[in-house]
């Protein structure tokens, strides 16, 4: 089966809301139907066909988006189970927002709010992400509530803000305020981590290779632990094709910090030992 390919011609004067692509994928539109969808661009309404070249119909579940630029927001918004989107190029804001089981792969970087308020599915970014990765849509009270985000690069500030469930895996560095206001879930990385990690976290786990800069005084050092469940977690982390495979599968010794005690303090920051 040949893939459906959507190519952006890059001629937009303003930001573009890409929710039409999710609509076309979930409704299995033909190329003709899709070309005629109207799209607000700045103060004008234009047809999708004027900005995108579509080859093939949206009757199969895998779609390739080529020539993507940071002007395209809401790529892969709320894609359901079974839908797969492969994006080449850098993406705009709200990539994979409210994802509902689909899979989005980006060969490029993303702007803010990637994977925000997603419920299920997988986002794989072969590049860097900006702020609020896996955070909450503005106004919403929960960030990522399920699924996996895998970033083969670095992420910005407030990674996993208001995270509720799921896993965020980052092979590179994470910016400041990682896991801020986290409700539950797991964030792990292999590189450095910025200031004030876990600020306001209620529950959840940050699994890190080294201590964050400026660790808040509201985290309590609970000593060294040998946690059996980490073996299970590592099995999950190593199941993806990424640098996480380099972690030894039986590793489970960590230094444990509990916090943020200002909001209950049931969260944990685990630092690998040895």
């Amino acid at each position, binding site marked *: 089966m040949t893939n459906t390919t959507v190519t952006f011609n890059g001629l937009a004067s303003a930001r573009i809301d890409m929710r039409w692509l999710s609509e076309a994928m979930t409704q299995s539109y033909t190329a003709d139907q899709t070309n005629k969808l109207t799209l607000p661009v700045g*103060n004008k309404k234009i047809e999708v066909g004027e900005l995108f070249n579509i080859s093939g119909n949206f009757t199969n579940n895998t779609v390739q988006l080529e020539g993507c630029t940071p002007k395209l927001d809401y790529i892969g918004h709320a894609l359901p189970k079974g839908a797969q989107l492969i994006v080449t190029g850098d993406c705009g804001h709200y990539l994979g927002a409210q994802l509902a089981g689909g899979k989005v792969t980006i060969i490029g970087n993303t702007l803010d709010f990637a994977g925000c308020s997603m419920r299920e599915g997988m986002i794989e970014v072969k590049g860097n992400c900006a702020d609020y990765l896996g955070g909450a*849509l503005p106004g*919403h009270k929960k960030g990522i509530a399920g699924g996996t985000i895998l970033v083969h690069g670095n992420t910005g500030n407030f990674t996993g803000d208001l995270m509720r469930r799921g896993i965020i895996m980052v092979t590179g560095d994470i910016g400041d305020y990682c896991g801020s206001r986290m409700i539950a879930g797991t964030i792990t990385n292999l590189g450095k981590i910025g200031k004030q990690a876990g600020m306001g976290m209620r529950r959840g786990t940050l699994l890190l290779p080294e201590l964050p800069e400026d660790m808040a005084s509201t985290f309590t050092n609970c000593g060294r632990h040998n946690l059996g469940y980490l073996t299970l977690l590592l099995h999950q982390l190593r199941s993806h094709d990424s640098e996480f495979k380099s972690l030894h599968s039986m590793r489970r010794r960590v230094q444990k910090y509990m916090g943020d005690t200002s909001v209950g303090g049931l969260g944990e920051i685990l630092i690998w030992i040895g």
Partner: protein
Amino acid sequence: MAIKLTGGEIYDPAHQVDGKKQDLYIVDGKVTHELPDNEKITETHDLSGCIVMAGAIDLHTHIGGGKVNIARTMMLEDEHAHPHHGTHVCRSGNGHIVPSTFSTGYRYAEMGYTACFEPAVLPVNARQAHMEMADTPMVDKGGYVLLGNDDFLLSMLQKNVSQSAINDYVAWILDASQCIGIKVVNAGGVHAFKYNQRRLDVDESGPAGITPREIINKLSRAVHELGVSHPLHVHASNLGIPGNFKSTLATMAAADGLPIHLTHIQFHSYGTEGDYKFSSAACEIAEAINAQPNVTADVGQIMFGQTITTSGDTMMQYFGHEHAHPKKWTVMDIECEMGCGVIPFKYRDKSFVNALQWAIGLEIFLQVNDPWRVFLTTDHPNGAPFTSYPHLIKLLMNRSFRNDAFSIIHEDAQKMSNLASMDREYSLYEIAIMTRAAPAKILGLTSQGHLGKGASANITVYRKQDDVEQMFAKPTLVFKNGTLIVRDGEVIEVVTGVTHVVKPEYDMGVEKSLSKYFDDYQTISLPNFKISTDEMIECIGSEVEVHPCTPK
């Protein structure tokens, strides 16, 4: 250059015109009934099959000021879910419950409204409120400035100063804040809340030793004696509390027969009967309004669905914060002048209390006999967003539609309401009164709300339809000062309205004591506090129309 509107049925209650077919002309932005000599008709609109009314006026809608912005930022999910894309004339915006400023103007114009009044302008926030309103295009604006919980007025009352000194302060505040009326929110109650008091009844002394009755009495007298057209605009005590109708009746009595306007009275018409200890007191309230010609009221009807409540009444907002939906809220004090509480709320038809609130609002509409003294509002956004007005009009005009809606609300609420037995159906003439003529009259807008000779050409034309909701939601033509701004429910030209204000006379000596108060307690100095007319025009960006006061 004249525009001729021919063949339409005119509803102009200010001149007792009830559906008469008559031609109208628009010359230089004014209405006239005969074509003046030397004028040529450049444009004719055939309005056969259409209803012609003056532009509608909303006398109580929260469209500007700090709390609206807090609501906008708090309900980002609403803003996010309702994007309004720009067109070749309109700017983009968003939001359904609390739309952004530009969208607010466009949506009002698309429903045929040409003037809106923000009822809660804090003196210290007046500059920001006017700036937001200046960014609200299409409609004329105005504000009611809040008094009654500010330290300065309470200290004046403590010292038992003369009525004329209070009049001077009230007039000064109106002048300094560029407003058209005075509003009191839970008189003394917001002040008492800061002293940990959770209730304050009308005849109960607050921490300053002053009762709400005294505050309302002094302020209503001040407004009356200064000759301000709009009576004291009162948000009574005990909002939302079962049994609060007694406080509402006491508040009406506190005015001592002087004009008083009770706002969102639906929220103040609750009894304590029945198994739920919550019942309708609409009958008592409507009877009181019918019996006292000095009392006017707007209803503040609720509609089912998600909305957000924004109020200066921190005491009652704090009381209601546990019902926030979604669970986020804020309550704050603002510069010891007033407070602000913002709580999202979802009214549900299957909730006994919400269902009965809905019925109480309609009961008040149907039991107040004089449409000149009851106004159509939802206290936007507290009861519902203003975009639900057409639906509300249909509920008032169509008994069977109303009864169908009534039959699906909470069953126990149906048993506690006599709404189904009410036969009254509002006529188009009465709707024109309560949305046009009466608000213009009570606000002292002599050139608005009617279609007499010389009136501003704010005209709304509806194509007659069986479904009045559809009809009122999408006027076929709307003129603002003679400019065609809306065609078939869509904005085709953007105009800016003016800000309506009053400037009663006062003794400048009041600034002497105020100056000391500002130096000692306020965060800005007195000269910076005052908003001049020049500032309104040159910096804030809104022309000012001053309405005369006739001191008594």
